[in-house]
C-alpha cells in the first residue's frame, strides 16, 4: 500500500481526487461559498457605520441623530441578513460534507472486503479500521471546523480588503505591509508546527504501546518481578510525550502571539500615517477610525492560519490514506456477470501447473498438479511452511496463483463468479468466528433466507440437538463479542451448522489445532463427519486420525506436492509422510 510509495501526491491532488471520489461534498459549493462570504461581512459593516456616523453624524454642527438612526437601522437589517446567510451556508456545508463522507466510509469499507490483505495480514486490520473510522473523522473535522474557519477567515479578510480599498488605498497598503512578514513566515511556521505535531503523534503511539504493558502484560510483569523496569519504560514514554507536546505548544504560542504583536504594529502604523494623510486632506477622521476596526479583522485570521495549515495537513494525509486504500486494486477480482457458468452437479477440482510466490519472495508453491475428484475426502499434510495452507487459499480463491490455473469443473476459478464459487465451495476456518448477535443471526450468515425451523433442522441434522437443547436462549442466545459467550468448541459447532446451511458441494477445512474440552470435541467430530458425508472435502490436517481416515493424502514439503496416495500406501512407501506419521505416532503412543 501507500506506505511504500515514494512520491506523495500533493495536497491539491489529494483534494481533487477526493472530490472526484465524492462529488456530493462540493454539491452547490459556489452558492455555499457565496453565502459564507456574505455571512462573514458583519465585521466589515460596523466600520462603515462608524465612519459614516463620525463623518456625517457627529458633525461640528451637532449630532444628526436621524441620520445615525437611519444608518443603524440599515446596518441592523444587514446584520439579520448576514446571520441568515451564515446559518444557511453552514447547514449546507454540514449536510453536503457529512453525506459525502458517509458515502466515502461505506465505499472504503466495501473495498476493504475485496482486498486479500484483510485475510492474509491480520496485523493490518487495526489500520484498516482506522481508514473507515478515525481517518474519515479527521476529514470531517477539517471540513466542518477548520474548513469553515478558513472560509470565514478568508471571506472576512477579502471583504475587509475590499472595504478598505474603497475607503483608502494608502492605508490599505499600510495594513497589508504590516502583515507581510507574518504571512511570509506562515509557511515556515506551519512546517515547523507540522513537524512538531508529527513528533507528538509518534510519541503518542509509543506511549500507548508502552502504557499497555502494565495492563496486558500484568502476569509477565508479576512473574518476573519487573515492575521497576516497566515503570521506567512507561515514565520515559510519558515524559517523551510531554516534552513533544510542550515543544509543539511553544511553537503554537509563538505563532499566535506574533499575530497579536503584528496587529498592534499595524494599529500604530495606521495611526501615524493616517493622521498625516488626514492632515494633507486624503482622509476623513471617520475613515481613519474605521480602519482600526478593519485591522482587527486581520489579527484573528492570522492567528488561526497556523492552526488551519496544520489541521489541513493532517486532514490531507488522512484523506490520502483513505483514497490510497480505494486505489489499491482488489487483487482477487469477481468476474460477476461476465463469469463462465459452472455446470450443475458435482465438480472436480484441478490444479494445473500452479505456482505461487509473494512479490519479491521465493515460490511458496511450485508447479502443483493435482486433480481432486467429486466425493473424495482429502487430507493435506505437511510441516509448517510446507505450502499446505497456501494450497487451501488458492483452492478457495482467497488468492490467485502467480502462474498456472486452478480449475473447478474445468473452468478457471478466475472466471467463476463469486456467487457461483461460493455456492459450490466453502472454506471453514480454524477458529469459528461469530458476530456479536444471536445464534440465529449467526447461523443465517450461512443461509440468509433460512426459517427458524430450518435452522433447528440443520442443528439436529448434524446431531447437535442435545447441545442446542442445553442453550438457555435457544436460537435467541446472544453469543457475545466474537462469540465469546460460547466456548471455543461451541463456536466451532456454530461454524459447522453455518456451513451446513450454506450447503456447498466442496468443503475446505482448516482443522483446529487448539484443544477444546473432550465432550465438545466429540460432538464436533461427529458433526463434522455428518457435514462431510456426501461432499468433496479437503482438510488441512493436524491430526493423525484425519489423515488415516481420508480417501487420499496429499503431502507437501517445501512448496512441492511430494506424495499423493492412501495413508497405508504412503506409510509403506517410507517417504516424507512415513516420517511425519511416525513422529505423530510417537507422540500419540507415548501416552
Amino acid at each position, binding site marked *: 500500500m501507500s506506505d511504500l510509495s515514494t512520491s506523495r501526491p500533493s495536497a491539491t491532488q489529494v483534494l481533487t481526487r477526493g472530490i472526484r471520489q465524492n462529488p456530493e461534498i462540493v454539491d452547490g459549493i459556489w452558492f455555499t461559498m457565496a453565502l459564507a462570504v456574505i455571512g462573514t461581512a458583519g465585521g466589515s459593516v460596523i466600520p462603515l457605520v462608524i465612519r459614516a*456616523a463620525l463623518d456625517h453624524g457627529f458633525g461640528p454642527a451637532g449630532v444628526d441623530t436621524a441620520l445615525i438612526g437611519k444608518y443603524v437601522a440599515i446596518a441592523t437589517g444587514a446584520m439579520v441578513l448576514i446571520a441568515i446567510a451564515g446559518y444557511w451556508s453552514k447547514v449546507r456545508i454540514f449536510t453536503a460534507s457529512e453525506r459525502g463522507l458517509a458515502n466515502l466510509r461505506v465505499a472504503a469499507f466495501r473495498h476493504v*472486503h475485496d482486498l486479500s490483505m484483510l485475510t492474509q495480514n491480520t496485523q493490518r486490520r487495526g489500520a484498516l479500521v482506522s481508514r473507515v473510522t478515525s481517518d474519515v473523522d479527521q476529514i470531517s473535522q477539517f471540513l466542518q471546523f477548520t474548513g469553515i474557519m478558513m472560509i470565514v477567515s478568508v471571506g472576512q479578510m477579502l471583504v475587509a480588503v475590499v472595504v478598505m480599498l474603497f475607503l483608502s488605498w494608502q492605508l490599505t497598503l499600510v495594513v497589508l505591509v504590516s502583515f507581510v512578514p507574518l504571512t511570509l513566515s506562515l509557511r515556515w511556521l506551519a512546517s515547523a508546527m507540522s513537524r512538531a505535531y508529527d513528533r507528538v503523534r509518534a510519541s503518542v503511539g509509543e506511549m500507548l504501546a508502552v502504557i499497555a504493558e502494565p495492563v496486558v502484560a500484568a502476569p509477565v510483569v*508479576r512473574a*518476573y518481578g519487573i515492575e521497576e523496569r516497566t515503570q521506567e519504560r512507561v515514565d520515559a514514554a510519558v515524559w517523551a510525550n510531554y516534552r513533544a507536546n510542550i515543544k509543539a505548544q511553544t511553537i503554537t504560542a509563538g505563532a499566535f502571539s506574533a499575530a497579536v504583536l503584528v496587529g498592534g504594529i499595524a494599529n500604530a502604523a495606521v*495611526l501615524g500615517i493616517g493622521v498625516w494623510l488626514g492632515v494633507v486632506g486624503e482622509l476623513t477622521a471617520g475613515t481613519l477610525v474605521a480602519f482600526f476596526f478593519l485591522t482587527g479583522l486581520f489579527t484573528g485570521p492570522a492567528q488561526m492560519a497556523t492552526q488551519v495549515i496544520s489541521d489541513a495537513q493532517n486532514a490531507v494525509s488522512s484523506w490520502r490514506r483513505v483514497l490510497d486504500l480505494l486505489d489499491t486494486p482488489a487483487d482477487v477480482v469477481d468476474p460477476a456477470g461476465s463469469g463462465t457458468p459452472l455446470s450443475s452437479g458435482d465438480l472436480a477440482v484441478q490444479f494445473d501447473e500452479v505456482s505461487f510466490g509473494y512479490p519479491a519472495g521465493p515460490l511458496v508453491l511450485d508447479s502443483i498438479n493435482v486433480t481432486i475428484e467429486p466425493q473424495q475426502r482429502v487430507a493435506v499434510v505437511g510441516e509448517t511452511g510446507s505450502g499446505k495452507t497456501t494450497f487451501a487459499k488458492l483452492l478457495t480463491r482467497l488468492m490467485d496463483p502467480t502462474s498456472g490455473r486452478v480449475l473447478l469443473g474445468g473452468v478457471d476459478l478466475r472466471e467463476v463468479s463469486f456467487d457461483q464459487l461460493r455456492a459450490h465451495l466453502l472454506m471453514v476456518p480454524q477458529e469459528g468466528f461469530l458476530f456479536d448477535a444471536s445464534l440465529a443471526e449467526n447461523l443465517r450468515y450461512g443461509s440468509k433466507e433460512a426459517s427458524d425451523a430450518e435452522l433447528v433442522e440443520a442443528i439436529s441434522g448434524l446431531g447437535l440437538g442435545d447441545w442446542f437443547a442445553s442453550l438457555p436462549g435457544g436460537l435467541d442466545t446472544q453469543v457475545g463479542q466474537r462469540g465469546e459467550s460460547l466456548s471455543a468448541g461451541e463456536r466451532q459447532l456454530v461454524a459447522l451448522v453455518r456451513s451446513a446451511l450454506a450447503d456447498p458441494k466442496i468443503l475446505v477445512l482448516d482443522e483446529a489445532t487448539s484443544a477444546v474440552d473432550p465432550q465438545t*470435541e466429540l460432538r*464436533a467430530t461427529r458433526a463434522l463427519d455428518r457435514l462431510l458425508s456426501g461432499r468433496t472435502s479437503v482438510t488441512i490436517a493436524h491430526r493423525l486420525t484425519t489423515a488415516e481416515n481420508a480417501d487420499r493424502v496429499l503431502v507437501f514439503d517445501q512448496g512441492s506436492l511430494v506424495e499423493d496416495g492412501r495413508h497405508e500406501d504412503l506409510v509403506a512407501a517410507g517417504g516424507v509422510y512415513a516420517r511425519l506419521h511416525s513422529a505423530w505416532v510417537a507422540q500419540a503412543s507415548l501416552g
Partner: protein
Amino acid sequence: MSTPSPTAQTPKKLDSLAGNATDRLTRRGFAVMGTGIVRQKFVFTFAALASLLFGVMTVGDAWVLGWATEHVIGPSFADGQIHSAALWTGVGLFLAAAMLRTIGVIGRRLLGGVVYFRLIRDDRMKVTRRYLQLPLRWHHRHPAGQLLSNANADVEATWGVFMPLPMALGTIAMLVAAVVTMAFADGVLTIVGLVVIGLLFVANAVYQRWQGPKIALAQSLRGDLSTVAHESFDGALVIKSLGREADETSRFRLASERLRDANVSIGRIRAVFDPVIEALPNLAILAVIGIGAVRVESGTTSASDVVQIAFLFTVVGMQIRSFGWVLGELPRAVIGADRVGQVLAEQDEMTYGLRDIAGTGPVAASVKNVTYSHPDVPETAVISDLNLDLAAGSVVALVGATGSGKSTIVSLVSRLIDPDAGSVTLGGVPVGELSQSSLTRTLALVPQTTFLFDDTVRANVALDLSLPDEQIWAALRVVQADRFVEALPAGLETELGERGTSLSGGQRQRIALARAIVRNPRILILDDATSALDPQVEQRVLTALAQTAAAPTMLVVAYRKSTIALADEVLLVEAGQLVERGSDAELRARSVKYRNLVDAYDQARQEVDHE
C-alpha cells in the same frame, strides 16, 4: 436477516443525562478543576496572571483607540496639522499595549499548556504505578480495554478543561475592565454593554446545553461504527467464504448513516448559534452608536467614548466563547476524574516477605489444603482443599478439562495470587514469606498468553537482567529459536515491534520460553506455553529443557500427549481438586476419566466409526 443494532438504546440513555444531572456534573466539574489548580498552583497562577494581562490590555487597546480619537485624530483633523507629541504618544501606546498583550498571550498559551500537560503526565504515571502495584486478582476483574482507557482517554478528559480555562479567566478580567471603562465613559452605554454580555453568556450556555447530549450521542455512534468495522474485518474470512460482503456493507452503511445524521444535527445547532453569537456584539455596537448619538447630542458623552465602547465589543464578543468551552468540558472532566479516581483509590497490594531459599539446584514445591475462589464469585471455590507435592527436579504434568482450575493452580504456585486458605511452599518456605527478588530468581512462569514487549529480542529475553550474549544465545538454542533470531536483520538487537507482531505465534512463544530459561530458574512453570509450536518442535524443546545441566523442577499444563509423555508424574485435576496422580501409564490403566480426556480425539473418531 435482521442486522444487530447496537445503537438502538443509546439516545434514551443520553436524554436522561440532560437537565439536573448536567447541573450536578457542572458543580462537580468545578471541584475537579479546583484540585487541578491546587496541584499546579504555581504555574497556573502565572498562566492566569498572563491571561489577566492579556485581558486587561485588550481593553487597554480599546482605551488607546478612544484616547487617540480624542487627543490625536480629533485635534489634528480639526486643525489640519500634526500634533507630534500626541501622535508619538498614541503610536507608542498602541505598541506598548500590543507588547503587553503579546507577552500575555504567550504566557497564557505556553504556561496554560504546561499546566495541562503536566497534569495528564503526572496522572498517567500515577495510574500506571497503581496498575503495577495492584495484584493480579484485581487485574482479572478489570478488562484491559477499560484500564488502558483510564490511563489515556480518561486522564485527558479529566484535565481537558485546563485548555480553555486560562483564557476564560483572562476573559473575566477583560469583562471587568471593559465594564469599568464603560462606566467611566457613560452609564447608559454601560447598561447596554451589561445586557449584551449577559445575552452572550446565555447564548453560550444554551448552546452548550443543547449541543452536549448530541455530541455525546455522536461519540457513542462513532464507537458503534468502529465496533461494526472491527467485527466485520475480524470475521473477514467467514464473510468472504460465505459471500456476505453486501450484507456486511449494509450493516456498516446503517451505522455510518446514523453517525452522519447525528453529525448533521450537531451542525444545525452550530449553524444557528455561530451567527447569533457573532451577530450579538455587532448589534451591540449598532445600539451603542444609536444610543450614543442621542447621548452625544445631549452632551452627556463624547464621540470618542462611543468609538471606544464600540471597539470594546469587537474584542470582547469572541472571548466570551471561552466560558462555553469551559462549561462544555466540565461533564467530561467529572466522568474522567471518577474513572481515574477509582483506580487511584484502590488499596489492594501484594506484600512480600524477606526470606530467601537456601542452596542451588531444583527446588520442591507443595500445596497444602489450599482453597481459592474467584473474588467475583466468592461462594464457589475454584480450588477446594487441594494438596499436591512436586519433588525437586521432577517433571510434572497438570492435566484437566477446561475450567478445572489448572491455570489457577499455576497462579497459586507462582504466587500471582494468594489462596483463601491453606499454604503454598517453595523449597519448604511459604511463598508469602519470600522476598520478591527471591521468588523471581527461584521461579519462572511462562503464561498461557504470550506477551512480547515493544523492544529488542535481547530486552525481551533478558528483561531487567544484564546478561552476556552467550547466555542469551544459549537460552535461544534450548528453545530452538537461535536460527530464526540469527536470521533477523539485527540479530539480538532487532526491534520486535508492538507485542512482537513481526514474529509468528510459534516464534513469539519460543522467545517467551527463552525469557524463562535464561534465568536458570529452580522451578519452571509452563501454562500451556508450547501450544503454538509444531509437535515436533515442542518435543525437541521440552527434551532439551529436561536435559539442561541444572534442570529445574517443572510443572507443565498440557493437552498434548507428547507434552504429557515427558512428565515423570501426571496430576489429573477436576473441579479444583486433585483426582488422580501417577505416571501416564498408570493413570491410563486405572482411570477412565484420564483416558477419556487424553484420548479425546482418538476416541471421538472411533465412536464415529462405530456408528
